[in-house]
């Protein structure tokens, strides 16, 4: 049992995070080869880099997958953004989506489930 914020060295926020949305998508940069060689990274950093390499995933999914509180994931992702090992795609606000056919695609996709 480790106190959750131990791995963030007590930090509860990060300059780049701007409260990263729960559904913001984390994508590993293609040039990142072997994050384990970077000894400045915690094992959790490495896992995020590996998880988001093949399947970019949301902050919420990373929290569930790594069993870490969302706040911790935000700090760790912020570190990785600083290191240019991942980038984050912020979700499109719904107000900017509605003109597009995306919502129709959502309806069709739900029906086809």
């Amino acid at each position: 049992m480790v106190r959750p914020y131990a791995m963030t060295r007590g930090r509860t926020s990060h300059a780049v995070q701007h409260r990263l949305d729960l559904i913001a998508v984390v994508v590993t940069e293609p040039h990142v080869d072997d994050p384990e060689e970077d000894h400045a990274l915690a094992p959790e950093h490495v896992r995020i880099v590996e998880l988001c390499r093949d399947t970019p995933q949301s902050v919420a999914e990373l929290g569930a997958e790594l069993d870490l509180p969302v706040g911790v994931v935000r700090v760790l992702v912020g570190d990785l953004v600083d290191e240019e090992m991942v980038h984050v795609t912020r979700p499109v606000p719904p107000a900017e989506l509605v003109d597009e056919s995306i919502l129709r695609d959502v309806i069709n996709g739900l029906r086809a489930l």
Partner: protein
Amino acid sequence: MILGRTERGKPPVEPVTLKILVAGGFGVGKTTCVGAVSEIKPLRTEEVLTEAGRPFDDTSGVESKSTTTVAMDFGRITLREDLVLYLFGTPGQDRFWFLWDELATGALGAVVLADTRRLEDCFAAVDYFERRSIPFVIGVNCFEDAARYPPETVRRALDLDPDVPVVLCDARQRESVKEVLVAVVRHAMAYAAEHRQAVTT
């Protein structure tokens, strides 16, 4: 992690992500509803009490206790490789309302699940979404031992605007929950179209 690694120069698909909230009183079927259409994952958020819970939590003398854990349900529905819908079950307890703001920001819309035996449990959620202008539908979860009421009766009891959809549903049934979610998306589309009109006229 060598197997399955994406070839260099072929970036993975970055999906468009959307979220719909599932709200309602304790025991109304929020978890069941999310689970009917997606694989549920538990999500923990640690909130720093000095920021989030200041009005409620007196930590003087126990300064080391600086965070509180809140668990919520969330599910992922992959509609297409490049289109993902997330469902978030909102925490039921009133003292976690501060989390709603984060969940609600950027949400496409919401389902407010209602149980006709204790309709008052969903008043708070209805108020919240009305005040934030977040499009929502009422999903009346038809429990087997509860009396059935027509949607119009529920609408009157909740004092809803005429355009808010009221849908009878069974939170255990995948098809039923799918229809509720489709109703949310449709309502969000109509809501946005109406607002655009209001801005241009």
